[in-house]
């Protein structure tokens, strides 16, 4: 098992409940998308998997360990095996892209190697290769404040690819990118997960990317899991009820209409399967 959440509940310090009785598990190598309206608890769920939030209730097991029963040094080692792509890339504006990517290995490198790397990068080919996968190789030595929002987000993805984690988490990884780049980035996350057989969990606010790329889709609403289905069985009516309170149209890239068969009156029909683009 890559991770197991049992009856997870989370109440923030201000008393607001973010998650309620969430039970979710994934085997090694699975690829899951979490979708749902904003404020549904997608980020909280990912942060619990990333061991950066401790749930108020329930049991967590990540990469076969219970993070909150580990001593400090082992928790640190566990965290270095988990990679997180953040929606707003947390990169210092004055840092160069190469340094930002190298920082992905800080948890694995001995401290002296990381320290020397500030004077002269300990690895140039590695970060360059990861940036090249995301079409950013020419920005290797540029400072983060010279990059656009979408480029920054890709530097954040490159850092996690360079980290080579055993559990790959992505919180809205393509929110600042145009559809073509979003597809490229998601395809790279998938090929990385497939090539190394690691688990990928991504939260997405656009439904079409989730359905096109992820074999398993989880619907989250008001802190609870409302469905956990293979992508092929996610029907229009399931989606409509997930986004019931929103504007009426489903959130997609560029607001293109979603290619899903309307639900039959009795039983929801399977939606038309769109084959995912070939993984590069």
């Amino acid at each position, binding site marked *: 098992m890559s991770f197991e959440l049992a009856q997870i509940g989370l109440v923030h310090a201000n008393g607001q409940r973010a998650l309620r009785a969430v039970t979710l598990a994934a085997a090694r190598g699975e690829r899951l998308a979490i979708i749902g309206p904003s404020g549904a608890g997608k980020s909280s769920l990912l942060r619990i998997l990333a061991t950066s939030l*401790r749930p108020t209730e329930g049991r967590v097991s990540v990469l076969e360990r219970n993070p909150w029963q580990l001593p400090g040094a082992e928790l*640190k*080692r566990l965290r270095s095996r988990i990679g*997180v792509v953040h929606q707003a890339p*947390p990169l210092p*504006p004055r840092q160069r892209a190469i340094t930002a990517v190298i*920082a992905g290995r*800080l948890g694995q490198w001995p401290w002296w190697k990381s*320290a020397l790397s500030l004077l002269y990068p300990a690895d140039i080919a590695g970060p360059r290769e990861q940036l090249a996968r995301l079409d950013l190789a020419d920005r290797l030595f540029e400072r983060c404040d010279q990059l656009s929002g979408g480029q920054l987000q890709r530097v954040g993805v490159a850092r996690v690819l360079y980290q080579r984690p055993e559990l790959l988490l992505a919180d809205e990884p393509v929110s600042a990118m145009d559809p073509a780049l979003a597809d490229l980035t998601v395809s790279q996350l998938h090929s990385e997960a497939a090539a190394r057989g690691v688990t990928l969990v991504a939260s997405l606010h656009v439904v079409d990317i989730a359905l096109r790329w992820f074999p398993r889709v989880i619907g989250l609403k008001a802190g609870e899991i409302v469905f956990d289905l293979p992508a092929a069985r996610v029907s229009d009516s399931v989606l409509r009820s997930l986004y019931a309170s929103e504007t009426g149209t489903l959130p997609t890239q560029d607001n293109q209409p979603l290619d899903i068969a309307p639900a039959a009156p009795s039983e929801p029909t399977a939606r038309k399967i769109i084959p995912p683009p070939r993984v590069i």
Partner: protein
Amino acid sequence: MPRSTTQQALRDPDARARATWALAAVVLLWPLLLVAQFRPADLFDARNLKVIGGFLGQFFPPNLNGEFLGLALKATVETLAMATAGIALAMVLAAPLGLALSHSLSISRIGPGPGRALGEALRALTRLALLALRGIPEIVWALLLVRAFGLGPAAGVLAIAVTYGGMLGKVYSEILESGDTRPARVLLESGSGRLMAFFYGLLPGSAQELASYTVYRWECAVRASVIMGFVGAGGLGQLMDQSMKMLNGGEVSTILIIFLLLVLLADAISSAVRRTLA
């Protein structure tokens, strides 16, 4: 009495608190000014103006003869050496304490995880240590250290190192908490150590502030070394002490001009450093 929602929406709900705090500040400040015998009118009293004028008159013209300038130059170098060595030692003392104190580099805060109580205890201890270092005025440290090291700059250097180490440590930790701390936190969340989270996550964003505060403290150390000089730690202070005792206003004003030039130099260094790190 219930108010309509439109009425409520048109009124700033925080206005009363703001007015109360402003009033409280004035009410507190007034008796303090009385205690401090703050009477600005005295400054413009004819008799006082004459006394002040007479005192200032002694300072002119500045003494610019070669022999004294040579002495002053030697004392300036001594003062700069004292201030620079003092600040360098202060940084060595302040950097680890500042990093230890800063909450933005706390691993046990994430979760919170293991070692939370120990971490907070260490942080409280560090806070206490910094308080003790900077709570005692540098002149007291100097008087104490002169007894151990004898007359001369060594006591001044250590006095500056100790007091300014305390100040730098406190302000370093505050600078590290006031900027964008997310980059460091995210690194800690992916298993990085504290020191590397600082170098890769916090330093790029706070280097400018850290450097310019350190240069400002260097400037303060130059001035502080005067007072050290009065208790026998050498440098411009000692020279000034001798000139004052001999009632030689011209020499004192030369030394004061040197001070203004040194502050100007500190300013130039500070803005150059900020430009480099921008």
